[in-house]
């Protein structure tokens, strides 16, 4: 019977979902996207809507609950903090711990799983935790405040993640693993020993082949130590159990649905349980013979169920359990089988690299592989599992994300998080005419979860004949980043020299401003010096922003948004005397609009005399560093956000970059300055500053990512210096930091390596470049009004400098001027 026919006389299907985790979220999202027209009621036991559990640990390093929470589903009744206690299959209703019941036509169980806590004495003592929810992490963080040391029981993927979290909370950390080596589900003994070397190098203590005899309490009743079977006691005030998960099948069991011998709600390929009105998806389901503990397969199950609810034909027949992750800074990856007739192994215990490929007995077919310390082969080879080897095995061990992957078969899975094949991606490229990775992400979801397949998406684009051309324009075959290097390394100082030596023709409105910006970033002269003036957009040429009627706006710098009454009065007087329109901008400063070209120098003169300077509102440069009032006035503030904002704005003022740069500083976690919508945003903490990068407001909003936490002011400034200089060096023309970061191979981790660990050895140069910028900064307005040569351009007409442009006129609206536009007549040829 079809689900729709089960609705009897009602017209709208009543769908009830139990559990609101990542899998339930994907189900609801998919139903919504496909136009499901029934009612949806979701019960979630946790006190908050579904969040990204995969990214749970980032909560401890500064991500907020809102960051992790998925966008709220539309038109869904969501009841958080309510647990479903029973299913009445006869009357088709669920009852809740809130005491009510909810009828359903179709029920979906997405109850996930719970950490398994082995029955060791003392496991219920205060100080014992599991690692699964935001509430768990809050509790662990609280307990860690007064703790010296912690133990994680379980050395698998999640256990090591928890261990890293304890280490991050400042605890001396131990890991106890029953098996002979770490991560036994993903790596073999050789890989485990290399992994152990890495982790011990970070100061963690590993106990393998070990169990727990008991957990002991001190006089206060809280955990003080953990005793191993050999009698050794480990000092610990925090104990985290991470010894595997158990599907939450209790509701299903109680109402008589079939469950597996070792747990898990049994479902068929359509994700239906033994009751055809009830589906089970995600970590609570026993699908295709197993319980999947990874988001990728769970998402696929959710999509299959959604399609079935809409009467579609989808099936779930098993999923790839390949994993690639970065744990405590070490790449670990496993794909396909973990054994085979033949294998090739590379092991470098000193460098901490282990790679092993498993091959069929005829040495022709790739069966699987394990990587520790370098996951290169994972990206390149995972799609070839079960297929002929794409090269000599020993070469493949060293295949980076190399060319091997380009020749992938169409059915090869490229994005395992979202189950997207190469064929599907190629189809989307061809049908939708996609030209960039973002397009592929939007259309297919590939690359949107863990991001590890993004380099491969790029290669597929290239292979599909898409010209991901780097050429800036017809005059330069180089990308902006390449031109930056050329100008930097060869010491080029003029556009003419650059185009003569490295380009063709005489340039255009694309390459000229781009090169002008590069020259300015590298401190090669005032932007209106000599030939440079001819490179600038009109805004840079006139150091003001052009408006729709050909007049300009003037925006003086007001660092951090702090201004004295006297200066405010000057701005008012200037506006009044020149008849300008005034408006307070979103960037905490004041815009003066309606100035004619020939008025600009006189306006600047008045402003400069009163101590103002250019605010660079016209430039692809630092705009403002906004701030909240901070600890000086605000009763919540923990640091002086205004003082820092002013210091940063004065440091980076005038810095030319591929696009405009915005920043803000908030004095505490309440974030009143909206720092996370900025290219670089700073939020005060008790210990210092958290630095966020790559945020954006505007057309395509993006929350900035946490780059580093609890920095001292000096470390903060140094990190921002390098972030900005590295961006200026490598970004495309007109690419904001948000898009730059999203396209950066290796993303945030790579950025951290480059600017905080100096993996490219360029930090000294970045620092020097910023130092030069800071020490050579001059106010562009002042430099212009003091130079008669530069002033020559500021006339209405060369042959009638005293005549204002007669086409500019204003009317009055709300007591201020407003441009009057002349109707257009256009000639076409």
């Amino acid at each position, binding site marked *: 019977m079809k689900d729709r026919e089960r609705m009897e006389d009602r017209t709208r299907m009543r769908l009830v979902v139990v559990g609101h985790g990542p899998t339930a979220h994907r189900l609801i999202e998919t139903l919504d996207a496909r136009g499901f027209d029934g009612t949806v009621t979701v019960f979630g036991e946790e006190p908050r809507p579904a969040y990204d559990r995969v990214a749970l640990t980032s909560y401890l390093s500064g991500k907020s609950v809102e960051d992790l929470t998925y966008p709220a589903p539309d038109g869904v009744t969501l009841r958080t903090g309510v647990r479903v206690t029973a299913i009445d299959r006869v009357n088709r209703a669920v009852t809740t711990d809130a005491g009510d019941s909810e009828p359903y036509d179709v029920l979906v169980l997405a109850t996930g799983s719970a950490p398994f806590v082995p029955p060791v004495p003392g496991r219920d003592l205060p100080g014992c935790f599991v690692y699964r929810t935001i509430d768990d992490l809050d509790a662990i963080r609280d307990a860690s405040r007064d703790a010296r040391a912690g133990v994680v029981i379980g050395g698998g993927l999640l256990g090591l993640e928890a261990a890293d979290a304890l280490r991050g909370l400042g605890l001396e950390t131990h890991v106890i693993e029953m098996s002979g080596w770490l991560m036994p589900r993903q790596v073999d003994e050789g890989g485990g020993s290399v992994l152990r070397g890495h982790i011990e190098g970070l100061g963690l203590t590993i106990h393998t082949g070990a169990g727990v005899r008991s957990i002991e309490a001190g006089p206060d009743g809280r955990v003080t130590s953990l005793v191993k079977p050999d009698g050794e006691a480990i000092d610990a005030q925090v104990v985290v159990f991470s010894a595997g998960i158990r599907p939450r099948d209790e509701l299903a069991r109680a109402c008589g649905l079939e469950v597996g011998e070792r747990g898990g709600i049994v479902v068929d390929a359509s994700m239906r349980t033994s009751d055809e009105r009830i589906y089970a998806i995600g970590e609570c389901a026993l699908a295709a013979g197993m319980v999947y503990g990874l988001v990728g397969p769970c998402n696929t199950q959710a999509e299959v169920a959604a399609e079935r609810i809409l009467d579609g034909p989808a099936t779930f027949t098993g999923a790839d359990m390949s994993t690639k992750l970065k744990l405590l800074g070490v790449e670990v990856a496993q794909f396909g089988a973990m054994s085979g007739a033949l294998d090739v192994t590379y092991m470098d215990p000193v460098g901490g690299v282990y790679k092993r490929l498993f091959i069929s007995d005829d040495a022709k077919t790739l069966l699987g592989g394990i990587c520790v310390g370098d996951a290169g082969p994972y990206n390149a080879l995972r799609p070839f599992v079960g297929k002929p080897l794409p090269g000599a095995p020993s070469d493949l061990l060293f295949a980076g994300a190399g060319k091997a992957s380009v020749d992938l078969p169409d059915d090869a899975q490229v994005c395992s998080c979202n189950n997207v094949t190469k064929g599907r991606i190629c189809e989307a490229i061809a049908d939708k005419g996609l030209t960039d990775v973002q397009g592929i992400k939007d259309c297919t979801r590939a690359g949107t979860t863990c991001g590890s397949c993004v380099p491969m998406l790029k290669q597929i684009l290239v292979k599909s004949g898409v010209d991901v051309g780097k050429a800036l324009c*017809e*005059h330069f075959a180089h990308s902006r980043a390449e031109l930056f290097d050329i100008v930097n390394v060869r010491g080029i100082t003029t556009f*003419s020299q650059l185009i003569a030596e490295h380009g063709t*023709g*005489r*340039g*255009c*409105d694309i*390459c*000229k*401003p781009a090169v002008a910006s590069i020259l300015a970033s590298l401190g090669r002269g005032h932007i209106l010096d000599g*030939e440079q*003036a*001819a*490179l*600038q*957009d*009109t*805004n840079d*040429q*006139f150091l003001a922003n*052009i408006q*729709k*009627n*050909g007049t300009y706006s003037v925006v003086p710098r007001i660092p951090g948004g702090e201004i004295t009454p006297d200066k405010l009065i000057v701005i008012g007087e200037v506006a009044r005397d020149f008849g300008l329109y005034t408006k307070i901008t979103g960037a905490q400063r004041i815009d003066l609009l309606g100035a004619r070209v020939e008025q600009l120098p006189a306006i600047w003169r008045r402003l400069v005399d009163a101590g103002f300077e250019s605010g660079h509102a016209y430039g692809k440069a630092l705009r403002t560093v906004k701030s909240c009032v901070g600890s000086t006035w605000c009763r919540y503030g923990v640091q002086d956000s205004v003082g820092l904002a002013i210091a940063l704005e004065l440091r980076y003022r005038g810095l030319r970059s591929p696009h405009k740069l915005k920043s803000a500083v908030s004095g505490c976690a309440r974030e009143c300055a909206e720092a996370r919508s900025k290219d670089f945003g700073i939020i005060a903490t008790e210990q210092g500053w958290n630095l966020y990068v790559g945020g954006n407001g505007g057309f395509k909003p993006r929350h900035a990512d946490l780059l580093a936490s609890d920095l001292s002011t000096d470390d903060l400034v140094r990190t921002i210096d390098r972030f900005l200089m590295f961006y200026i060096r490598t970004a495309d023309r007109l690419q904001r930091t948000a898009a730059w970061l999203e396209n950066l191979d290796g993303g945030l981790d790579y950025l951290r390596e480059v600017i905080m660990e100096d993996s490219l050895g360029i930090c000294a140069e970045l620092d020097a470049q910023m130092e030069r910028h800071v020490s050579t900064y001059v106010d562009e307005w002042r430099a212009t009004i003091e130079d008669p040569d530069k002033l*020559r*351009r500021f006339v*209405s*007409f*060369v*042959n*009638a400098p005293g*005549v204002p*442009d*007669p*086409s*500019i006129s204003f009317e009055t609206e709300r007591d201020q001027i407003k441009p009057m*536009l*002349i*109707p*257009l*007549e*256009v*000639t*076409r*040829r």
Partner: protein
Amino acid sequence: MTILDASPALAGHWIPVCPYTDLLPEQGAAVLVDDRQVAVFRTFDGALYALGNLDPFSGAQVMSRGIVGTRNGEPTVASPMHKQVFSLVTGVCADGSGVTVPTYAIRVTDGTVEVSVV
């Protein structure tokens, strides 16, 4: 602004506008010829061009403030307002829309730039 047809009475009527050296290489300048606004440009090779100063897309008198460059070897200016590119030689917009700005004759006599709006 109306684009006038050539008026025979003014044919060959050259109006001096400024010394050649007042024009900077690869930049434009606005000049007032009778009551008409003209954008004059000096390209890198010293050649001069004159176009109507009115940007036909925005209606503002701003063409003289655009960036001068080349497209396939032909000298161009890009409107500073919305960046449409126009040929300095023909006044035709490179976007294929057929939109055109008027072009005027321009020359240098004894170091003085002269424009004829006929």
